[in-house]
């Protein structure tokens, strides 16, 4: 009985270490939580263009083409870091549809941001109240989703995209 009591810490230690090791080795990354939406249909959304309120984009408009959705804002500094990469993606994969959602941003700030840093998106949708982000389960900005031709989310990344991530994780899916 006493022996078991003394053995307990070692057993607990072993369990903790095994789980931590599996976690680390499986390449899990706190920036990449398993999304409940992965391999599910893209949520239904409807958003107007930043530049023309009458220009509306809906879920069905992105069917039948691969789409990269990026949530960004002018006040989000990590967004600024990943911003130039979208130009490269656009250049390299002209058939990929780049959809940006401007998240909780005053229109003037958003426009100025895209003027200063350039606009890599095919369409910039406004998500001023954050409802679309809510539908997508956005944790924090920036967040990026890849949607396939069937309208299923096949990839999600939290935080700024880097060259490595683009090369190793996104490009194989394109």
């Amino acid at each position: 009985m006493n022996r078991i009591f003394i053995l307990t810490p070692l057993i607990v230690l072993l369990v903790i270490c095994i789980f931590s090791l599996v976690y680390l080795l499986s390449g899990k990354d706190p920036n990449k939580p398993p999304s409940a939406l992965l391999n599910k249909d893209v949520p239904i959304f409807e958003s107007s263009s930043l530049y023309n309120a009458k220009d509306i984009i809906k879920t069905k408009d992105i069917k039948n083409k691969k789409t990269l959705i990026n949530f960004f804002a002018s006040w989000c500094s990590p967004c600024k870091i990943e911003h130039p990469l979208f130009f490269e993606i656009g250049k390299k994969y002209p058939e990929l549809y780049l959809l940006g959602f401007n998240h909780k941003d005053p229109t003037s700030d958003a426009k100025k941001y895209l003027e200063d840093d350039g606009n890599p998106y095919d369409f910039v949708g406004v998500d001023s109240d954050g409802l679309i982000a809510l539908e997508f389960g956005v944790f924090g900005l920036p967040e990026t989703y890849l949607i396939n031709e069937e309208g299923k989310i096949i990839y999600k990344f939290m935080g700024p995209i880097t060259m490595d991530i683009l090369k190793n994780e996104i490009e194989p899916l394109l």
Partner: protein
Amino acid sequence: MSSLVGFLSLVFAIGINFYLFLSRYIFKFQKQKFNLFIRFSSLLTLLSFFSLMYAYVVSDFSNYNVFQNSHSNKPLIYKISGTWGNHEGSMLLWLSILSIFSFFFSFTKNIEDNFQKLTLIIQAFLHILFGLFIVFTSNPFLVNSILVNEGLGLNPILQDPGLAVHPPILYAGYVGYSIVFSIAIAGLFQNTDDEWLYVAKKWSLISWTFLTGGIALGSYWAYYELGWGGWWFWDPVENISLMPWIAGLALVHSLMMVRGEQAIKKWIVFLSILCFSLSVFGTFLVRSGILTSVHSFAADASRGIFILLIFFIVTGFGFLVFLLKEPKKSNALNLLFINKVSALVINNILMIIATLTILLGTIYPIIIEVLYNKRISVGGPYFNSTVIPIMIPGFLLMSIAPILSWQTNKINNSKKYVLAFIILSILVLIQSYFLDFNTWGFVGLLLGFWIILASIIAIFSSYKIKINIKFFKIINPHVAHIGVGIAIVGITCSSVFQNELDFNLSEGDKFNINGKTVLFEKIETTNEINFQSLRGKFLFDIEKNQSKEIEAGKNYYPVSKMITSEAGILHQWNKDIYFILGDQKNNEWFVKVLINPFVSFIWLGVVIMMYSGLIAVSRR
């Protein structure tokens, strides 16, 4: 240049420790020579640390670490604190503090030579493990491959005086337990007399006091810097610091009470190993980036695996020695219905359950994600509804524990206590009736005040009041408990009776807080050395001549493009009025005002606990 000096002295220090470690088996040393080597390696480690600090102070951007984390425009104090404001530097700080503890321990008198030597050899072993970790995965002395004139800056949220000193003090607590760990293991290997218990007591008190200070500083920082109006968020990193704190508390109490009972001695060894294991586990969780929190640095799997290995070796070694060399049993505990020993046992059981509950809540998300590939987060509601109820019986017990007897069930002056408890309950009930009744508020206030009152009664009825150092040493346990009582009152009031007011205001508007008129004077923007500040200025209580000015706002750091919020806090002895400036909309500013009653009591309680910790170090 300084980077080279730093790196070489680090490697040299690890080498010396390796040599010392081998000396147990191969080269035999005299005590004097051995101690000299230990001190020399400590100084080398410190030299390495100060070389890094020097590189920060002179903004030597040829060092990659300095380039990544500093900027020449930063004020001097943040250049210095930048040394440990990043992963690599903070690990070097960790190692330096380990060395400092070894250094001072080598001067300890009154313990057997072989015992001291063995303790220091275990310290040397730890030094090697963490030293190699730094050299191979987290080297702060890497050379910057590009030529630059300017650095990338320090995380602005860390540019704060409170936070500049938070990590060293916290680490002094964590790493201090390494000595306690080494002493305990050495004690298992060499069944010497009980002298080592007194040595262990001193060091565990020192560590615990530092840990208390470090946690309090961190939580005070969160209170005024994060701008959320609270001071404890059950963030994983907070939990990690709380676990060794509670286990350390159990350890300190067990050490105070040891009177030759083998069972307690065994328990002390267990707690000593546990405290340091939890510290290393905490280091692993934070450094591997396995948990997301405000403290996360860049995640790196190789680092994580290395430090997991260290955790496994250290903890596994500790508990294995405990298993194999377990102290032999002899006389049983003198357990009665209510005496000092039984109170101690109950207190220890509760603290261990609380520690395990926090541990479970902290690692549960990892286990679930491995098993089900789902991410969950365990937060405040879990911890509040599990940890707090577990602690409540312990708090009740602590009010009377110091006056219990060793041998009998008798409590002196028990009538006085019963009477005081009844009167106090009625008073608190009346108070709760006039304010909105809240169960937690009632329980918390009653507990807090009861601990204070019972301790005061104990002081006055058990000892002759004298004003000298000896008297303060004798009443020290009661003083410590009064500190806890005061902190409980503060915690209860500030969390249960917090009041939130929201306003939309234009400049020049007047509004009302608790019957006092407040003027929203103006918005002011200024350019500081390394940031731009936006401040809303408020005049509190303008009807009086001595109205108080409060500034709340935000800072924008252009180098790292980050915005931090700066809460404006008006401290009064019985409440903090906490201003948060929100966003502007249609020329109106959103202003949130939180009234946090008796927050100052928390900090006062913590200071009293730390004072008692220090007094207890000097008491034998």
